[in-house]
């Protein structure tokens, strides 16, 4: 059985990113959302908030994965780490609120089963956005890695070449 391994430093960094983004977008929705909705309409603002939230999660996935691609981690490790971080950060913010919301005693309460389904669907969407960001980061890192195989660009090689050219010039003058 294969072990489920994570790169813990990147996992911690990613979790913090998603946690911060979740709280930030929630604060924006709670504070700015209602007055904006009055001005431009509730549906517009709802769509805008959802788009901003998803885009932010993709960006967080990109930032987390870029660090891992840069150290030539395998795709599996990158995805496991970024998605675990995203799921943990998302769940830490929204799962408790969703559970509290379902248990709130109002006349308009959502049925528990459907609320659980909605939680899972939204979490899957968040993971999908994160995965897309992680894969976009992999493309930029591969181009960087191909440039690395051109040894003439390495600083030490450049230094040696310049020193060699300098010595050759001096030798010609001595001759």
């Amino acid at each position, binding site marked *: 059985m294969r072990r489920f391994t994570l790169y813990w430093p990147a996992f911690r960094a990613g979790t913090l990113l998603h946690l911060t983004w979740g709280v930030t977008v929630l*604060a924006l929705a709670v504070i700015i*959302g209602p007055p904006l909705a009055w001005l431009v309409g509730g549906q517009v603002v709802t769509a805008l908030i959802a788009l901003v939230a998803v885009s932010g999660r993709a960006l967080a996935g990109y930032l987390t994965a870029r660090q891992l691609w840069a150290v030539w981690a395998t795709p599996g490790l990158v995805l496991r780490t970024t998605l675990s971080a995203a799921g943990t950060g998302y769940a830490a913010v929204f799962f408790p609120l969703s559970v509290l919301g379902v248990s709130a005693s109002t006349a308009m309460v959502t049925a528990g089963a459907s609320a659980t389904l909605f939680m899972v669907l939204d979490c899957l969407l968040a993971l999908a956005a994160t995965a897309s960001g992680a894969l976009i980061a992999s493309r930029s890192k591969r181009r960087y890695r191909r440039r690395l195989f051109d040894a003439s660009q390495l600083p030490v090689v450049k230094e040696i070449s310049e020193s060699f050219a300098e010595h050759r010039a001096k030798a010609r003058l001595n001759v």
Partner: protein
Amino acid sequence: MKRPSPTLPTASTALLLLVLLAMSIMLVSGRDIAHQLTLAACTDAGDCGTFPDSPPVCHYAGRDRVVARESFAFAQQTPVEGARLIQFGDDSAEVIVPGDDDSAEVYGFLRWEDAQRWVMDHSSQFRGIAGAAAGPTGQPIRDGYLRMLRLTGLDHEAELEPVATTVQVNEPSGPGSHGVLRQNAQGEIVQVTVVMPLDEATAELQDFAAALGIWGFISYTIDLGLELKPDRLIFGGPASEGWSLTQLRSAAGIPRSSASDELPGYAESGEAVLRSFVLDLTQRANTALYREIFAMESVSGTAAPLLTAEDWTSSGERSELYSQVIERVRSGAVAVETTHTLQDADSGEETVLAAVEGLVVQAGNTASPETRLVSARTADLLISSASFDPLLTCEPKPDENEDDHVRKGLL
């Protein structure tokens, strides 16, 4: 070449933690900030829609105006799906949330601004926006956020508990009648309201309603104090045209009214007029009459005072009872007449009757059209020469003298 580290630099970590802390702190007072911003936005736009607004009532002295301010509904509306909001003339408001059966919960607010906050907290539109932060499926994130504030003690407002519950009753006072019993938090009945359609009523009741200038249906509301002691009795209904106080005072018994029983003209112009007569049941004469025409009956598993004349008395006895009521009304009631515009509703008999019934029943879970008060007038029939005086205008009449200005407390 140094390999990049797959962790966040210390500065970035510190910045993220700082942002996390700042956003968490803002969330604590986020609801209040949002309320202020929303009110500012809609006020600038000139229309706050379903948010309750301050009613324009002049602070006059006088028994009729005090009674009117306590009884009439300034506005009724459906601010959020499944809830009905009533604003009263004394700045208070109530929100009625129907239950699964024929009951409903009543949430009371001493100030209309508190009702504004309730409407915003329960707006499905705002709830959807907070839920969008989690995803597009509409999780109850806002409800959870509000509940989290209460559980952690960060909400300066206590959890709102219903001040009363209401129960619907069928045919409590004759065929076709229906009403609402209002119970306080201790389970005691504090108000009984019954609507009696006139097309199914006895001839004596129809004459009684016509004498009061009421068509369509007539209602009675009894406000009860401790140990079911009656405080106030209100007869009311849609106002008919061609009626006047002079007719009410003109003859003994039930006066022959020239009021029309056809659809009034105001119904075609998107308005509804409610005419009410308020009797003070702490006066001995009124109390004696009350005991004659109302009897404690068992209804919905409890005892409540109900008008039994329609069911249990003969035609002659009914005529005599209603004559006595007319006598008490013409000699000591407070007459209140309020005109309301129908908001976003088609005109017509059914709409007008439904709107007025909502204003009469108030705490019932009636699905009534939205209305807003445009004018009101009152008359204290204890004063023999009293006539209807406007309630909502502070401008004096042209022929009023200085003594009247001082009495009414005009600025």
